[in-house]
């Protein structure tokens, strides 16, 4: 049972503020994904939790104990780096044993634990090899094994999948979720990939320029983004953001939705395209580009000066979708999200006296 709480963490590098007033309390053994564009302060956050850097202000608590002033080697926290950081002079066995041997564990005990972890991660057959003879995926496993061998309370993962190829990434993603379910530790996983965030997290923290944008479950973050940044960052293909006047002239107008201070966000999968009425109505958009994405097609439609993307499920896709074709756009009003143009904040629909 482990719990992390971060209180008002702030980190300055000279005059630039990398992380600003970061507060977060995890649930027990939660899988938390911190997601944001590069340079948003997510690696700084990991370094602060690991103790590799000292915060300018704020504190880190693990299981109720304030560990802000402890050195990294005094914290029960493991970290998996993006580039694995295996020890090149040691064999896989020695790499796995390192966290134990620096703590002066008994030789027999080390052997037992290393073999246990190696078996779990299916790396038993190359315990005697040096890291340089391993493939990327194998190195990744060794790095994860080295992090889990001493059963830490907190697991920090710094973009651990970004150096793997696509198929291996998916497999490792699955394994990490399994791993999290099998051990009792808080996972703090940092990534710039929103797909990883949505698929793995119990809760997501969206970070931009060192400031928390939203904390929530994947569903909350996806369906109820709190501001324009979160809406645009999470989800692929990207959410469509339209000014209200464009929305009103191309979609079924919403009665009270003609306020210039608002804009609307519509997820691509909520847009329905009707190709059956190819009349020359002004309200029709024109298909400009079609991307095949596997289970769906991303259809780019030009409406006025705006281009929007609609996802069409593969089973409803047919020959009537082609470039240059006029289509009518429709949307379920319930699924439209409103944002304030100035502040970027989401506006509750009921406050709009619809």
């Amino acid at each position, binding site marked *: 049972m482990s719990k992390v709480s971060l209180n008002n963490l702030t980190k300055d590098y000279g005059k630039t503020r990398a992380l600003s007033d970061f507060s977060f309390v995890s649930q027990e053994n939660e899988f938390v994904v911190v997601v944001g564009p590069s340079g948003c302060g997510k690696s700084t956050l990991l370094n602060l939790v690991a103790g590799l850097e000292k915060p300018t202000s704020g504190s880190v608590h693990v299981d109720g104990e304030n560990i802000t002033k402890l*050195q990294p080697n005094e914290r029960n926290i493991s*970290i998996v780096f993006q*580039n694995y950081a295996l020890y090149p002079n040691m064999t896989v066995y020695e790499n796995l044993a390192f966290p134990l041997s620096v703590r002066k564990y008994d030789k027999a005990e080390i052997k037992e634990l290393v073999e246990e972890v190696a078996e779990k991660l299916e790396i038993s057959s190359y315990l005697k090899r040096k890291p340089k003879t391993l493939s990327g995926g194998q190195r990744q496993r060794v790095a994860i094994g*080295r992090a889990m061998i001493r059963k830490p309370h907190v697991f920090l993962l710094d973009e651990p999948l970004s150096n793997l190829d696509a198929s291996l990434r998916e497999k490792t993603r699955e394994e990490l979720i399994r791993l999290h379910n099998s051990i009792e530790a808080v996972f703090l996983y940092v990534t710039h990939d929103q797909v990883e965030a949505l698929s793995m997290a119990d809760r997501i923290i969206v970070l931009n320029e060192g400031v928390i944008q939203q904390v929530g479950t994947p569903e909350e973050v996806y369906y109820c983004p709190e501001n324009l940044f979160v809406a645009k960052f999470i989800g692929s293909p990207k959410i469509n953001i339209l000014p209200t006047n464009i929305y009103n002239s191309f979609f079924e107008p919403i009665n009270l939705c003609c306020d210039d201070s608002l804009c609307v966000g519509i997820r691509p999968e909520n847009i329905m395209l009707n190709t059956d009425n190819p009349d020359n109505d002004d309200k029709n958009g024109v298909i400009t580009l079609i991307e095949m994405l596997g289970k769906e097609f991303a259809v780019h439609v030009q409406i006025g000066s705006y281009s929007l993307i609609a996802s069409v499920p593969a089973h409803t896709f047919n020959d009537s979708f082609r470039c240059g074709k006029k289509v009518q756009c429709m949307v379920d009003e319930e699924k439209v999200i409103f944002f304030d143009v100035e502040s970027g904040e989401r506006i509750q629909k009921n406050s709009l006296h619809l």
Partner: protein
Amino acid sequence: MFIERMIKLIVVFLSALFILYPLFFSVVTALKSREAYVESPLGISLDSMSLDNFIKITNNFDFIHKMGNTAFVVITSLIIIFAFSIPTAFYLCNMNNRVTRNFLTIICFSFMFIPEEVLILPEYNLMSKLGLINNFLSVIIIFVAVSLPECIYLLYMYFSLVPNTIINAARSDGATELQCLKRLVVPICKGPILVVLFTTGIALWNSFLIPMLLLHDEDKKLLLPSLSGLITKHSTTPTYQMAGLLLSMVPLVLVYFIFRRHIYEISINGSMH
């Protein structure tokens, strides 16, 4: 193509000549009798060649004892130098304050350019005031002081090639700074450390001025200063001395062959993506 090849050949030949000529001269001289040397310093005649000089110098000159002195002084100095320079270099690498770090490395760097001879007189004065003349300690102290800045600077340069994430990984794995140094930095930089060790060792082994001034007693003398004394003491021809010089090189060559394999080993290959 042909001309290019010829140029390459000539360059290689010339550099070989530059390197081999002194060695050739020493070997030929050492194998000659005094008379043959006077007759023709560079001539080679197989009949007159003999190992007499080598035998004579090891029998008459207490060669082994003097070599032992040198070995003792050099090895002790090296141990002290590396006991200090390795941790210092690692500490410099991890120094967060860039201004202080650069200041300290520049100090180390600039000490490399002070010629040894300039310091001879003050060093002699200091040692005689401390009463350390004719004491190995005086030479060891000066050897350490002279070599330390260079070693720290070079090791710092090599240590800073070890990626920081590896060290950070070790720290969060629970290693203390000393364990990081002992189990990661030193093994990873084994090659460079041996190179620095070896070159420093050669410089100290062949050091001449300092031990000559500070150690006068016959049984305290180091090898090189006493070999240079031979030329006036026993003869005016260098045949005898050359044999001694060649013999004094033997331990260095042996050490080189023992460590040769490790010197090329520096590799962080495979640790990072």
